[in-house]
């Protein structure tokens, strides 16, 4: 009986994908232990969150893509409503409304829901119009992207908005958005950014972040300090790192957010270039497997969903490591499966669950 249940539960898991995620998560817990000052408290708490997230992943892996698709419209609608709720009465933290207090549920960050809900509704929408897609469908899809994007930008949370926009864009791109529109859109976007800068549509802190990214030495005490200290940590790690628990930047409190968004700096300092290569290889294996799943998916919904989730993982990893190493401006993006924090972890494991669902329900549809 129990064996049967176990078999049923694990039947839909992709062993390769699961193995790689487990490896990354294990590495993450190792770094976390060092980053929080070699105490087990946060490590245990993170493990518990991981267990919950994995449970959700297993449930979702067992759902068929068709069933998941049914959630597209309600989830998107709830997401939009919550974003409106945030705009009207959200909790103000550090000058931005990002959180919504819902009685009985607690604090919810609706933008997090959108990271899944947006690709979901787009994939659902495109599948409904499979075989007869024209420019009008893309126009509607674009509108579906722009609404949550705009709401999150207004919070203001430019980083998350860009991530949500990217997730939406990946679906449009994979669905076959015309190259002329992509190129045209890129040009328009560039102009838009220029205008936003020139006409002060950006908040001061956003401008500052961009400026600090361009020249971090300008402001060694505040925002630029993060970038510089992270670069010092990683650079001083050298080829093989200073060893687990030996990072001076980490343990003498020079690193900001060192167990959340900047955890890669701890990793880079203590495990060096070798550790960096190992992590990149693990991500590549994970994403490569996701690409295979995407390519083998039997329905358009499955393909679009799996594809956008795959690219979302890449975006998270690339933007996070890029920002910690000073290649990109600082935005609030966690390192997938490594950074401390439950919300992002659940989103990520839902995405893994969807990938597994797409993979494991492939044959059923074919037969």
């Amino acid at each position, binding site marked *: 009986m129990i064996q049967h249940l176990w078999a049923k539960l694990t039947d839909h898991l992709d062993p390769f994908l699961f193995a790689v995620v487990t490896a990354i998560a294990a590495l993450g817990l190792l770094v976390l232990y060092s980053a929080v000052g070699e105490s087990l408290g946060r490590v245990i708490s993170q493990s518990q969150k991981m267990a919950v997230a994995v449970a959700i992943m297993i449930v979702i892996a067992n759902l068929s893509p068709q069933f998941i698709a049914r959630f597209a419209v309600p989830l998107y609608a709830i997401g939009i409503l919550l974003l409106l709720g945030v705009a009207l009465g959200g909790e103000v933290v550090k000058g931005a409304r990002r959180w919504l207090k819902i009685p009985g549920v607690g604090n919810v960050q609706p933008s997090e829901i959108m990271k899944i809900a947006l690709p979901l509704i787009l994939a659902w929408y495109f599948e409904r119009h499979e*075989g007869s897609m024209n420019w009008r469908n893309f126009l509607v899809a674009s509108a579906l992207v722009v609404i949550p994007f705009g709401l999150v930008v207004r919070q203001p949370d430019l980083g998350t908005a860009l991530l949500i926009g990217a997730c939406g864009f990946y679906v449009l791109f994979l669905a*076959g958005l015309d190259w002329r529109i992509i190129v045209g859109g890129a040009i328009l976007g560039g102009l838009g950014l220029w205008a936003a800068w020139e006409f002060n549509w950006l908040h001061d802190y956003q401008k500052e972040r961009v400026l600090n990214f361009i020249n971090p030495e300008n402001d060694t005490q505040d925002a630029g300090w993060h970038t510089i200290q992270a670069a010092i940590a990683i*650079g001083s790690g050298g080829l093989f790192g200073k060893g687990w628990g030996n990072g001076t930047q980490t343990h*003498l409190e*020079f690193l900001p957010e060192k167990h959340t968004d900047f955890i890669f700096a701890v990793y*880079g300092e203590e495990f060096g*270039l070798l550790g960096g290569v190992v992590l990149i290889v693990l*991500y590549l294996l994970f*994403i490569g497997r996701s690409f295979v799943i995407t390519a083998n998916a039997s329905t358009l919904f499955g393909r679009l969903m799996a594809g956008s989730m795959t*690219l979302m993982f890449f975006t998270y990893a690339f933007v996070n490591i890029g920002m910690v190493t000073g290649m990109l401006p600082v935005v609030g993006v966690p390192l997938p499966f490594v950074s401390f924090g439950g919300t992002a972890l659940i989103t990520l494991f839902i995405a893994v669950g969807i990938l597994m669902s797409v993979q494991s329900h492939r044959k059923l549809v074919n037969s």
Partner: protein
Amino acid sequence: MSAELRNHDRELFWFQRRLSLAAVLVVIGFLALLGRFVYLQVIQHKHFATLAEANRIDIQPEAPNRGIITDRNGVVLASNYSAYTLEMNPQKIADLDVAIDEIGKIVEISARDRRRFKRLYEEFRTNESLPLKSRLTDEEVARVAANRYRLPGVEIKARLFRQYPFGEVASHVVGYIGRISQSEKERIEQQELSASYKGSDYIGKRGIELSYERDLHGSAGSTEVEVDANRRVVRVLSRKPSVIGNNLQLSLDIRLQKIAEDAFGNKRGALVAIEPATGDVLAFVSKPGYDPNLFVDGIDPQSWDALRDSPDKPMLNRPLQGGYPPGSTYKPFMALMAQELGVRTASQAINDPGYFRLGAGHWRDDKVGGHGIVDMVKSIVISCDTYYYQLASELDIDEWSGFMKQFGFGQKTGIDIDGELTGILPSREWKAKRFPKDPKLHVGDQVSLGIGQGFNTFTPMQMAYATAVLANRGVAFKPHLVKRVQDARTGESRLTQPSPAYTVPLKQAHVDVVLKGLEGVVTAGTGRTAFLNAKYSSGGKTGTAQVFGLRGGDYKASQVTERLRDHAWYIALAPLDSPKIALVAFVENGGFGAEAAAPIARKVLDAYFDPALLDAAIKKAVSPAEALASASLQREVKRAR
């Protein structure tokens, strides 16, 4: 159906194309990250490794212990004690008054502390913390520590303080230290001493503390520590100890100094006593003095204004910086010169009618009708002006100044504290330079110079030096306040003046004549009353130097305002046959030398020759409060060992 299928296949084909493109982008993205890793961790590794070390390691300077100053018998005159201070960083505080009020609720902050702090802040405008209250009790320290979270920018520091246990006594000798000013900082940098001063906030400002700064200060050590991002020390990596400053042993006898200062009472003036055989300065008095302890943590504006604006000029170092005509104390040196230059012999006498006439000039003696027949010894004993008017009129001024120069008149004596006045020893050259419109030095000018008036301007220090050289029969030692400099670590010490500076070529018979005159002053002349029944032999000479040109008319001291009264002088040496002490006592606006200055000299000489009197002085000097201070000081000394 088939069309739809074909459509489906085409869509799948395009999808696969786009997916491949995405995969390529993913690979490029990750390769870019790897490239960035290589750049940071391989190419720039050294740079970042250095930065990480610099982040981690802090060099904390360790200020050296300042050397201790003692008198010739080892009595401590300046020392250090460690105490807690409450320091505040004004840069971290929005409203100083509010912040001080807040602290005032926890420990008592006096109005004086508040004023002193504000004055310090205005003076230094530093971004470092400044002391608000020093010498906190253990209880106060505990209270502040408990409330620290409420007091940003406030910290408690344990640091060494300078203490002058004798307060005003010898204040013009010892001087004081104070916080390093901007200009002093620049000077330290110019002299490339910055490394020695790392972590030091204080520097000598006056007196010995200033002139022996290099010996006293020592040099800073440092501690290499690992710190966290808040610059809190995590652990000590290495330590280079500081080098403590050298200890100074003064030639001063604080007992004699105290007796001399007490002898002045409320009078203004100066006294310098020198050991002729060594140049040791035994007492160096400038009255009034000031309490150097006031300056250590920065003086409060009220006390400073009081010191600065007082008509008694307590900050003026009179022996060194006060220039006065020597009056009749100049006469013994005139007599010696007359013999040396061959202008007079001891036995040549004049008949004094009570005045001296030269051309249209007319100079009066004190005694109406004159002193009658006056030879050289008698001229000194009775201080006969006419004898010296005549002598002066016969001399060549350049020969004169050339001779006097050897006794240090109008010359810096080279004593080892700063700020010495040169004074004026008139010569042809000087006159021409000083009065270009009337460049010639007239014989009339010379006549006044002969009795120590006129242009003659000497410091009490110069008078004491000249007396010492005379007492030592021409063998001159540079006067010095610091006798010995001792390296506190090795215990090795060196004398500052081991041998004579030069010898004035004098015929000893000529010196004997002058000494006989000085003896006569004490036994039968103007110094007789002051030195009645002295238990030792001494020689002396009174002097009364005019401040105001009243000499031609009737001068009645009671009718002249105090500030315009004559200055009183007395020079002395004792015992006569082989003088162990030469001194000058000077009372500003004191009136007659015999009445104002000679009694002070008597008290000092009495004490010098009576150990019981000397010891009584210091026993009396140490009040209960001072005893407490000296006890804590001895603890400090023990701890330092």
